[in-house]
């Protein structure tokens, strides 16, 4: 093996990479945009529920209901309407998330001791958000019912009650940012390493220089190292930048071990480099390589648990996720950053990542070798 030859290949790769002006925005902007989008824009947090109100009762009781909602910081009564049609219109236009209709007979029924209905209309187009909003509404009404009971009976209950003291661990404020941002670190590493590795090899093929290199005494593995080392370096630099942003800008806690995190990223890189090399052996042009890369990234993003829980997927698809290196790195990164766990907990993920990485990389190298010889 000639270290000199590998070093010169790496140097040549860097010269080419930075000389091509089109590469600069990808290298700098891709990680920044990813982390800003997932840090700021993609957000499942419910901070404010817009409510349209229709009160046909106009009594002390209906007033109490309205006051309870308006006193709650989560709710924002944006519209008060008189016409059911107007409320429908507001929901249809997406101006409000929830509509509350109080009928004329509310007070009468309550005073008679009957159950009084109020209608809650919810916009169900974004189903998971709606479910959360509706449950907030239910919580408020529940509390209201208890208050009514106490007002009416106003006697000391002989029974005690159960009080749930809720503590959410690892992400106490349930920021979805803390759920997404750790994954971005791995996603950026995957994107850059996959795309650039396959492109670097294909460029050599397209330009005819590959044929030239084959007749030189250069050995295939020297070429493989010359083509992967630059992008391992770049991926790791990207990782550091994204991690610094995640920690200092988005206040992502680091509760676990950084060296362990670094090890995981390196293991993950073996897989992505392998896939990148593999893509380069099945593509003839840069366009094909680009298409194949995105064809690969899309499902590995969706089938990773990055956004959608794996447990909700059909069983067959769940099996498929075991082949997805991104799945394991996500568990590892979230575990290290948010929970502060170590190898004692994460060893299955580390093992899977290692086995998967070696298998993919070996297969890719063998195929690459065959192509060269």
């Amino acid at each position, binding site marked *: 093996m*000639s270290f*000199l*030859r590998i070093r*010169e*290949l790496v140097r*040549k790769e860097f*010269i*080419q990479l930075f*000389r*091509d002006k089109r590469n600069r925005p990808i290298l700098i902007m891709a990680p920044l945009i990813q982390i800003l989008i997932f840090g700021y824009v993609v957000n499942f947090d419910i901070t404010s529920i817009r409510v349209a109100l229709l009160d046909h009762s106009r009594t002390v009781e209906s007033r109490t209901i309205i006051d309870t909602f308006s006193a709650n910081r989560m709710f924002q009564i944006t519209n008060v309407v008189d016409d059911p049609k107007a409320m429908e219109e507001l929901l249809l236009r997406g101006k409000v998330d929830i509509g509350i209709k109080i009928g004329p007979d509310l007070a009468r029924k309550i005073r008679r001791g009957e159950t009084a209905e109020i209608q809650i209309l919810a916009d169900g187009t974004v189903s998971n958000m709606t479910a959360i909003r509706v449950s907030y509404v239910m919580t408020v009404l529940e509390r209201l019912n208890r208050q009514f009971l106490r007002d009416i009976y106003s006697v000391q209950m002989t029974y005690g009650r159960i009080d749930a003291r809720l503590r959410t661990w690892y992400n106490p404020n349930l920021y979805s940012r803390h759920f997404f941002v750790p994954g971005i670190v791995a996603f950026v590493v995957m994107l850059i390493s996959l795309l650039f590795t396959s492109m670097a090899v294909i460029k*050599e093929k397209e*330009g*005819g*220089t*590959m*044929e*030239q*290199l*084959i*007749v*030189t*005494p*250069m050995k295939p593995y020297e070429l493989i190292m010359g083509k992967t080392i630059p992008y391992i370096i770049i991926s790791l630099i990207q990782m550091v930048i994204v991690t610094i942003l995640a920690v200092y800008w988005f206040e992502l806690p680091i509760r676990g071990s950084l060296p362990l995190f670094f090890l995981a990223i390196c293991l993950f890189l073996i897989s992505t480099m392998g896939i990148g090399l593999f893509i380069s052996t099945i593509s003839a042009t840069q366009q094909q390589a680009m298409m194949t890369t995105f064809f690969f990234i899309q499902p590995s993003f969706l089938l990773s648990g990055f956004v959608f829980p794996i447990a909700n997927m059909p069983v067959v698809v769940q099996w498929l996720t075991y082949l997805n290196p991104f799945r394991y790195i996500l568990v590892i990164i979230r575990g290290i950053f948010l929970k502060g766990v170590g190898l004692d907990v994460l060893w299955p993920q580390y093992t899977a990542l290692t086995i998967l990485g070696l298998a993919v990389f070996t297969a890719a190298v063998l195929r690459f070798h065959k192509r060269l010889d």
Partner: protein
Amino acid sequence: MKPEQASSPFVAIDHVSMRFGEVEAVRDVSMEIEKGEIFGLVGSDGAGKSTLLRMVATMIKPTAGKILITGMDVVSDKRKVKDLIGYMPQRFGLYPDLTVDENLQFFMDIFGIPRGERAKRREKYLGFSNLLPFTDRPAGALSGGMKQKLGLACVLIHEPSLLILDEPTNGVDPVSRQEFWDILDEMRRVGMTIIVSTAYLDEGEKCNNLAMMHKAQVIDIATPAAIRSSFPTLEAAMISRLQEADQDIARDTFRHHAINQ
């Protein structure tokens, strides 16, 4: 040292065939190339010249037959053979985004040219090809002729003893072609052996020996003068020979069919 090496030819191609699926690109070709000669391959497009050269350059393995370069087999001694040869494909792969100098330096690195030699060789081969004034120009911005000369410089930089050139002057202007052949002449003078395929028969005249290929086969190997024989030009001779060969093939095929029926 094997005793037969002294008398054996520099390149020995022995009953070599190459098949790509159904297509036979090279059929039972044998030839010998002596040290220090320029050996030309001429013939129509698709005659199998490039495939033959690629086999000599260790790029592809022949389906049958043997190729020996100074007694070393291009398949089993591939690594050693690679150190001896320089191969320039029809479309030489330069890095268009690297400068002339960077391209040359890269190939020097790949071939492991020692530090002390580098400056000297750079002067020599860039000087040869008149590229010294353009060292900072990206290879992609060179003219066709200059690109080919840079390609040649990159192949020559490790001073191979066998140079394999596949239609190196295709589409190059006459002046650059002349310059290109001047370099080849100079290389022959210092003892380099050169195999070159060409579509230009005036270049064929400059070779020591010519192999005429047609439809995957070699139909003649001789000096340019012998091939020209009574014809006014090499071109006229070749056209006549190729037509003759086509008739032979047609006759053979006809006979072959007749026997089969």
